[in-house]
């Protein structure tokens, strides 16, 4: 029961975007996908979630994603996509309820309220979703997504959270809160796969990370293994230096050094 990507390639509009990616993600862990802009992170996530066709294999709990029905995948995993526009004036609570699956979970009437409380929006239920700030909307969507996979482990195996830049419009307090929720989900036996921009946050929370560059997998392993000066400098095309953080994880400070010295 894991997420297994084998030799996965994707073409978008006839242009190759991902080349032969192979990686594993285990339940109980946060697996981060990092890389510079345009490296194929979001494309990889979209292939894993069944949004776009791919060559090769993407198996979630042993099921080939491309061949699964939407409702089968929905019972297995939830996806937090990058922000989109909501078409009609639904309330926050109505949006969160869209995550409710028709399975047993539906019986528990207080779940939407609990999901909203998790993301710190308990009192927002009656408000118009469109009136919320960008960061609040993102957290409300996270509540919807958490509701969809409320039990991290179901009768048929671990459930999965796929997060596309989950902290992109959040302040540092809420960044920690959201990553903390991902951490608890993984600690309870679920699997988390997150596309991340912030390498320090990734180092703090991820168990495994995969670095992409130009649609190819450059490095994969623990943050300690992946986050080295040479690997990151080469992938991001800028000089960086990785240090040890007070909490024993690697962290980096972008260096304002002349490129020649790199």
């Amino acid at each position, binding site marked *: 029961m894991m997420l297994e990507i084998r030799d996965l390639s994707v073409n978008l509009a006839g242009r190759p975007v991902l080349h032969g990616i192979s990686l594993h993600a285990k339940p109980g862990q946060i697996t981060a996908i990092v890389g510079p802009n345009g490296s194929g992170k979001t494309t990889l996530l*979209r292939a894993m*979630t*069944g*949004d776009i066709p791919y060559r090769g294999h993407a198996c979630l709990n042993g099921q080939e994603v491309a061949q699964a*029905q*939407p*409702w089968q*995948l*929905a*019972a297995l995993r*939830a*996806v937090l*996509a990058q922000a*989109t*526009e*909501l*078409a*009609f*004036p*639904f*309330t926050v*609570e*109505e*949006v969160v*309820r*869209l*995550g409710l*699956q028709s399975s047993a979970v539906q019986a528990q*009437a*207080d779940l*939407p*309220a*609990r999901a909203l409380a998790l993301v710190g929006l*308990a009192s927002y*239920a*009656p408000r118009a979703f469109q009136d919320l700030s960008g960061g609040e909307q993102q957290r409300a969507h996270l509540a919807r997504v958490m509701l*969809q996979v409320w039990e991290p482990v179901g009768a048929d195996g671990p459930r999965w959270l796929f997060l596309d830049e989950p902290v992109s419009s959040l302040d540092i307090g809420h960044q920690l809160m959201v990553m903390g929720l991902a951490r608890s989900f993984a600690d309870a036996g679920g699997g988390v796969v997150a596309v991340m921009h912030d390498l320090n946050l990734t180092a703090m929370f991820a168990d495994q990370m995969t670095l992409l560059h130009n649609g190819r997998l450059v490095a994969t392993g623990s943050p300690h293994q992946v986050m080295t000066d040479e690997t990151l400098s080469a992938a991001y095309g800028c000089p960086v230096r990785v240090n040890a953080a007070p909490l024993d994880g690697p962290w980096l400070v972008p260096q304002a050094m002349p490129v020649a010295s790199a």
Partner: protein
Amino acid sequence: MVMLAETLPSQDRATRAVRVTQGLAVVLALAAFASLGSGATGVSLHDMLDGITEREALILWDIRLPRLAMGVLVGAALAVSGALMQGLFRNPLADPGIVGVGAGAGLGAVLAIVLGGLLPAGLAAWLGPHLVPFAAFLGGWGATLALYRLASRGGNVSVATMLLAGIALGALAGAVTGVLIYMADDRQLRDLTFWGMGSLAGASWTKIAASLPFILPVLVLSPLLARGLNALALGEAQARHTGVDTERLKRVTILGVAASAGAAVAIAGGIGFIGIVVPHLLRLATGPDHRFLLPNAALLGASLLVMADIFARTVLAPAELPIGIVTAIIGAPVFLWILLQRRGIGGL
């Protein structure tokens, strides 16, 4: 936590939506009585209570009842097809009449009237009175499919493209319809005139029976699409993530729009704006949840059209105002109002 769930607003909205349903049922019943009691002959329901004469029975059964039934059917069909189309296009401005679906259905109907004689006799006989509604359904279906293809890219609908493509499709269908009318003979022209007035005046049990197989299934089954259409408001990819088979949802919704709008156009001609006014008013009252929106739209659409019809045939009595004019006078300002409200929103 349980307390909280009970005080949540979607519960409020649900309660209010159910009350609106009950209220609309009463309104529709009152409108129906008013409709049966008014007409050019001046026979009122009160007259009939004292014992119904043969002439009164004839007026009631052959003129007023079919007219009422057709008003209910067409009003409900137009409102539900509008709500479905707006859910599909994720935009409150999508209306079958405005974006060319009505024109496509009209083209289908005119084709059937003018060129129906060229069909193999067996097929024509088999379709019988269903021929015109069926052709209108096909025309509306083609227009809806073409519109969706033109206006959507990667699951996102561009509203500007939708409205402009709708204008182009409507103009094209109108031009071809014009050619057909030019070709029509005298008898066909009379049929076309009757058909094209946008009126309930030609109501008959035959027409109702001809359109019922197209409209009734949509009215009864459309609430099954509600959950999917709600999720679609998040965007197509996100709807799929929550478990909705979006491809099937789109196919079925397009069929539903074409069947109900097409059949309504086939029997009543171009009656505009019901499809845009009714869902908009209901969203203001009880929110956008399609589980309540679709059934309530059927009730409000039926009530509104029956009332507009009473107005249309009493205000200038014994002459009659085409009902399309009445709905346009109410509906066009509402359309502009929605447009103005949304002017600040990106991409409308």
